[in-house]
């Protein structure tokens, strides 16, 4: 406002003598006084303009200071997160080493016949339970990583672990139990006609909308069966490639047309009315074999973003956790083998 007023007053002050020069020279007071008033007006508006500009500069400086404080706080927080993650990785190592040690002890006890089967079973169950407890914590950490990446609401990101069992060679009691909770089976097919079955084994924080479930996985080496693969975790396991379902409402767009129609209907119905809107499935391996899938789900679409950049960043931030999960599941397998 003062900038505009300042120009008007200065302009009037400049043109006044041009129009009323003769009157001013003759010292006619009715012209001299307005001219003097204009001169005073120029001085006052200049002062007011300078004050206004100084106030604006002060406000800008204050805003810059505020921004600097926020950025500094954010950097502190990131440093703190980095240190927490490093600490987590550090404390993950001892349990993995000790589980291997426990396996050695169990193996030796069995060999020497120095412990009865009940004792051995107790040690095995103890070891498996410890590994599961650590796995649950890793799942929580993964959910926290993804939640923090998107600055999402607490509990909007959840994680779970699916364990894979090869159908051929699977103990009959386990197979029977899994048969009872298996969903998405092609019409007229038996569980034995699939290559693997995957069971939802552990949650970081459970999703009450998703109860115990197992899913069948076809053999991708067979061209016809490859077309029957269910999108998400089964496809990830069969193809040994991480998968993402960016929108559960569009899940069928990721399936081949050949996927059994009853499975297509079941899939659509399964996600209807559930809060989960997108999920990523990361394959877990032991050597070159698939052993399970780490699922990360979100109540919003596009859990891995819409471009490769976000996807790469998220996957890379999870890699160390994936490695820990693979080590722990491997330890469980070795413990079971030692105790059997």
């Amino acid at each position, binding site marked *: 406002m003062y900038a505009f007023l300042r120009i008007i007053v200065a302009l009037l002050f400049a043109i006044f003598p041009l129009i009323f020069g003769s009157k001013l020279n003759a010292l006619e007071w009715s012209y001299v006084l307005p001219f003097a008033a204009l001169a005073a007006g120029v001085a006052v508006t200049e002062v007011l303009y300078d004050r206004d500009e100084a106030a604006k500069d002060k406000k800008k400086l204050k805003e810059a200071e505020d921004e600097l404080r926020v950025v500094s*706080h954010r950097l502190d927080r990131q440093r703190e997160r980095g240190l927490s993650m490093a600490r987590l990785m550090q404390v993950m190592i001892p349990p993995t080493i*000790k589980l291997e040690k426990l396996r050695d002890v169990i193996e030796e006890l069995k060999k020497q016949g120095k412990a009865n089967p009940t*004792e051995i079973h107790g040690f095995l169950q103890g070891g498996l339970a410890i590994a599961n407890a650590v796995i649950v914590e890793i799942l929580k950490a993964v959910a926290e990583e993804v939640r923090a990446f998107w600055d999402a609401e607490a509990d909007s990101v959840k994680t779970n672990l699916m364990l894979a069992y090869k159908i051929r060679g699977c103990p009959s009691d386990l197979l029977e139990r899994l048969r009872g909770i298996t969903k998405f089976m092609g019409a007229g097919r038996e569980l034995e006609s699939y290559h693997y079955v995957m069971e939802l084994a552990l949650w970081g924080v459970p999703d009450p909308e998703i109860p115990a479930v197992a899913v069948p996985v076809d053999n991708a080496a067979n061209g016809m069966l490859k077309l029957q693969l269910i999108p998400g975790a089964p496809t990830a396991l069969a193809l040994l490639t991480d998968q993402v379902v960016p929108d559960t409402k569009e899940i069928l767009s990721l399936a081949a047309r050949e996927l059994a129609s009853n499975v297509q209907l079941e899939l659509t119905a399964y996600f209807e009315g559930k809060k989960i809107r997108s999920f990523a499935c990361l394959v877990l391996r032991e050597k070159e074999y698939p052993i399970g899938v780490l699922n990360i789900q979100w109540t919003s679409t596009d859990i891995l973003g819409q471009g490769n950049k976000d996807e790469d960043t998220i996957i890379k931030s999870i890699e160390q956790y994936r490695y820990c999960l693979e080590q722990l599941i491997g330890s469980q397998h070795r413990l079971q083998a030692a105790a059997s």
Partner: protein
Amino acid sequence: MASAAQARQILDSLKDDVAEVKQAVLDLTEAGKRPSEAEKKVVEEVKEPAPIR
């Protein structure tokens, strides 16, 4: 020579490790608290400093 006592000792020690892992995950979660809220608080503190008594 392995013994049952040794196995029990490992299991006990593993329980302590789990407690440490749990604490580390809690710290990670604490460090990742929603920045918008924390930063809003910092900005409010800057804009309206507490009165000096």
